[in-house]
């Protein structure tokens, strides 16, 4: 086993965060695909006994779980190049807050856009538009959420750019209308090799959403 191993699933936005961070840092690693819709590997079950989920980063045999924790670990274990978190405590706190927001609000609400139907979906759509506007406000006229430099919040949110098409199609609305700066930011992120190599094509994600909808019995 190589020194750095990433247990992952090709379409996982959480795994993609880790891939982006490792690429930004120039860290060589072994990528191992887990079939999360099927049987989990013994290595995954051993490395993440609490959640049994990808991604897991295994560094010199030691596992790190939870994507945002993995990204912070990557930033701290390879500190000499491309810092993802700022040095200033207040700026760091802001970055941590907005990264958590992507998980607790953006992703949570976003998943309801394709998991639900009818009134519940319509309510989720309204909520999601509110969340987009908050992100739009936080981004403002900056190049990245991190400012001039690509940073922690950008890594946290970038994988979900592939999901915009699915959100829009499932719930019937335009993300560009609600948050044009965020859409422009997404395109800037895609110009980075680390992001372009990690993200799945929006059509592939839409296909995956179709598979997940069947799995969850949504139709």
């Amino acid at each position: 086993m190589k020194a750095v191993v990433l247990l992952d699933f090709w379409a996982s936005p959480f795994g993609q965060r880790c891939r982006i961070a490792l690429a930004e840092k120039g860290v060589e690693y072994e990528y191992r695909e887990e079939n999360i819709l099927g049987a989990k590997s013994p290595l995954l079950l051993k490395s993440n006994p609490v959640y049994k989920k990808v991604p897991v980063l295994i560094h010199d045999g030691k596992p790190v779980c939870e994507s945002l924790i993995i990204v912070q670990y990557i930033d701290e274990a390879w500190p000499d190049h491309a810092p993802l978190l700022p040095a200033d405590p207040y700026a760091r706190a802001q970055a941590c807050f907005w990264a958590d927001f992507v998980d607790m609000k953006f992703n949570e609400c976003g998943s309801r856009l394709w998991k639900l139907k009818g009134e519940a979906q319509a309510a989720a759509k309204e909520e999601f538009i509110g969340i987009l506007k908050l992100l739009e406000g936080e981004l403002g006229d900056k190049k990245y959420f991190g400012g001039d430099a690509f940073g922690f919040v950008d890594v946290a949110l970038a994988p979900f750019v592939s999901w915009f098409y699915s959100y829009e199609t499932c719930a019937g609305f335009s993300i560009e209308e609600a948050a044009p700066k965020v859409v422009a930011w997404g395109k800037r992120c895609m110009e980075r090799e680390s992001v372009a190599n990690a993200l799945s094509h929006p059509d592939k994600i839409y296909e995956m959403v179709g598979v997940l909808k069947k799995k969850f019995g949504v139709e």
Partner: protein
Amino acid sequence: MDQPAFSVKLLGSWADSHTHRVQLALKLKGLEFEYQEEDFINPSPALLLHNPVYKKVPALLHGGRSIVESVVILQYIDETWTDNPIMPADPFERAVTRFWCHFTDDKLAPAVGLVFSSSGEGQKAAVDQVHENLKLLERELKDGAFKGRRFFGGDKIGLLDIVLGCGSYWLAVFEEVMEVKLIDPESFPVFHAWLRDFEEQQEVKETIPAIDRLLEYARGIRQMMLSLSNSSSSSINNAAASSG
């Protein structure tokens, strides 16, 4: 100890475990701060201004800026006032600490809250969930990442002790109010011993409200919940969910 160049103010609620986390961290760092009590159900204009996204306590005000989300606040405090660190220095240790903080708020606390807000079969399932979660922590203390340590942070209280400890008192409170067994010392000897040791520390005793007050508070909320019809108001759920 250095006192802050700018004053520190904490918006909190007396029965809120996330507020206690911040109070304890500030005490451990020897920092003076102003405290403003917030009504859990009716946030003040100040709270709405300083936490517009979540509109919840705690909110730390420092140098004209606000920091919210308790684990984010704790790390901010540790990085701003660097004496007596509460986070380990090693990146892997830091990742392990952050993981179990995440587990506490993602799995354990909601399960504990559910014990309080449910009844019958639902409550039994919630109690089982709490036991499952405590088993995982017990295993880490006994044989895993925290083996042989007095506290999760080592010889001294660290960030994970603060996060887990400020909230674990609800286990004893809910045991009494709900008449369920949650933290049996025979099933969870190491966790139980850690919690007793934690609660004996001077700064912790100064932070956590007296158990009588917590019991009275919990009984009051439970009464209110039971006297409402099947669906609880969201503010009651917030109170229950945040008390974990």
